[in-house]
C-alpha cells in the first residue's frame, strides 16, 4: 500500500483554512461586530483576501521551481478558486451596498472611476479562469491554449494592484508592498531563477491529475 502523500492530506486542511476568513466575517456580522463602518469592513476584508489568495496562487510556480517539489502545484487550482470566491464576495458587496443593483450607476462608476474600471476588469477576467479550471475544460482547451488563457492572471494581478493604489487616499504603503510582492513573484518566473529542468520521474507523472501536469 502507498503511504498517503502529504499534499493529499494537506488539501482538505487548506480548503478549511481558505474558508476561515469568510467564516470570520460572517461570525462578526452575526454578533454585530463589523466595526463602525460595516460595509467598508466587508469590502476591505473580502478585497484583501482576494488579493492574498491571488498572490499565494502566483507563488506556487516559483515555489515549485525553487524547491523542486512538484506536487505543490496540485494546490494551485483551489487557491485560485479561493481568490475568485473572495473577489466575487467583494464585487457583490459593491453591487449591493454601494449601488443596490442600480446597473446605470454601476456602469457610470465603471466608466468614470479608474480604480473601479480596473477592479471590475480584474473581476471579469477572473471569470473565464474560474470557468476553465476543471479537468474537463483543461482537456477540451488543450494544454497550450489553456496555458495561454490562464496567463491572464498576470494581467489580473497588475489590475488589482492598480485598483488598490488608486483607491487609497494617500497612504500607499500596502498597495506598494503588495505591488512589490507581485513584481517579485513575476520576476521569479524569469529564466534566471530557474533550475535546469529535470525529467519528471515517470511514476510521479503518472499519479498527477491532468490539470496538475499542465502549466509551465
Amino acid at each position, binding site marked *: 500500500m502507498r503511504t498517503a502523500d502529504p499534499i493529499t492530506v494537506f488539501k482538505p486542511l487548506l480548503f478549511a483554512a481558505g474558508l476561515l476568513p469568510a467564516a470570520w466575517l460572517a461570525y462578526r456580522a452575526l454578533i454585530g461586530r463589523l*466595526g*463602525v*463602518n*460595516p*460595509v*467598508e469592513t466587508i469590502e476591505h476584508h473580502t478585497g484583501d483576501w482576494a488579493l492574498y489568495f491571488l498572490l499565494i496562487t502566483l507563488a506556487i510556480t516559483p515555489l515549485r521551481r525553487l524547491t523542486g517539489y512538484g506536487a505543490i502545484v496540485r494546490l494551485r487550482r483551489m487557491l485560485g478558486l479561493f481568490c475568485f470566491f473572495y473577489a466575487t464576495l467583494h464585487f457583490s458587496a459593491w453591487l449591493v*451596498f*454601494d449601488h*443596490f443593483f442600480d446597473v446605470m450607476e454601476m456602469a457610470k*462608476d465603471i466608466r*468614470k*472611476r*479608474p*480604480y473601479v474600471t480596473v477592479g471590475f476588469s480584474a473581476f471579469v477576467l477572473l471569470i473565464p479562469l474560474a470557468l476553465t479550471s476543471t479537468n474537463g475544460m483543461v482537456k477540451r482547451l488543450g494544454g497550450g491554449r489553456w496555458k495561454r488563457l490562464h496567463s491572464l492572471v498576470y494581467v489580473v494581478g497588475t489590475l488589482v494592484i492598480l485598483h488598490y493604489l*488608486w*483607491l487609497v*487616499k*494617500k*497612504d500607499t*504603503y500596502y498597495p506598494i508592498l503588495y505591488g512589490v510582492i507581485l513584481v517579485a513573484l513575476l520576476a521569479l518566473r524569469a529564466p534566471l531563477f530557474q533550475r535546469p529542468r529535470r525529467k519528471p520521474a515517470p511514476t510521479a507523472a503518472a499519479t498527477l491529475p491532468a490539470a496538475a501536469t499542465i502549466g509551465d
Partner: protein
Amino acid sequence: MLIRRPQEIPSSEITERSVCLRRREFLSRSIDAGLTAAALGAFGGLAAPSVLAGEKLPGVAKSAYVTDEELTPYESATTYNNFYEFGTAKEDPSLYAKELKTRPWSVTVEGECARPGTYALEDFLKPHALEERVYRLRCVEAWSMVIPWVGFPLGDAIKRFEPTGNAKYVEFTTLLDPEQMPGQRRPVLDWPYVEGLRMDEAMHPLTLLAVGMYGEVLPNQNGAPLRLVVPWKYGFKSIKSIVKLRFTEEQPGSTWNRTAPDEYGFYSNVNPERDHPRWSQARERRIGEFLKRPTLPFNGYADQVASLYTGMDLVNKYF
C-alpha cells in the same frame, strides 16, 4: 450525584440592560455631582489643572444650531477617525492618541492682528461661554456623521485679537510632535498639518472652535484640546489639536491641497456636483446606515453659507 442548580439571581440584583449598555454615561452621571462641584470654580472645568478626555463639561448652553437627525453613537465617533498624526487607519487615533498631553497647551496668535502673542489655553478659552451644536460632518471619503460639538464661534475669538485690514485669511496649524504623534514619524503628509479659511468663512456664525463633544471634553483622537469645526466643508478642513492661528493677506496653505491640488481644493466645500477625481461625491454613507444617501450642497448648510460664494465657479475653479 446531585448537582445543585445555581441559585436564581434576585431580579433586584440585575442591572437593567439599558443602564448596563450605557455604563459610561451611568458612571459619569454618578460622579457628575462631585465633579461639577469641583470644576465649577474654574471656567467650565477646562481651566482645571488635569482635564481628562471624557470629563463632563458643565454649564454648556443649548444653541439653535441643531439638527434633529439621529446622533452618531459616541463609540463610532471616537473610534473611526481620520487623524493621520496618529496613523492612517481609522482605529489608529483611538489607539495611539491616549499619549497626547493636552495640558499644558498654548495657542500662538500671529500675523496681521493687533494682539498677537502666545496664550495659555486656559486664557484663550476663558472669555467664551460654551454652547452645544449638533452638526453634520461629511468626510471627503464619502461617509458622514452627526455630532454634538461643544465650543464657541471662532469669530468671537478672532475679534479679540483685532485682525488688521490686511487680514484676509486665517491659517491654522496642528501640533508638531513626532514623540507624541507617531503618525508624524512617517512622511505621509507634509507635517505639521495646516489649514486655512477666508476671513468671512472664519467669521461665519456656523464656524466653531470646539473643546468638547457629547457634553464631554474632546477625546484626544477627536482633536483635543482645541479643534475647528466647519460643517459645510469636508472634514479635513476642520483641523485638530490647534497650536497656532495666523492672520494673512495671501491665501494660506492647506495640507491636503498642497499634497494633491487637483483632488483637494482650498475651499473644499461639500459639493455633490464636484466629484473627487477618483470617486463620486454625489452620495455618502451615514455611519450606522448600509445604503448611501444623497449628499447635500454645502452639507445641507446652503441657506446659511451659499451667499459667501456668489459668483464663484465652485465646480471647476474654487472647489
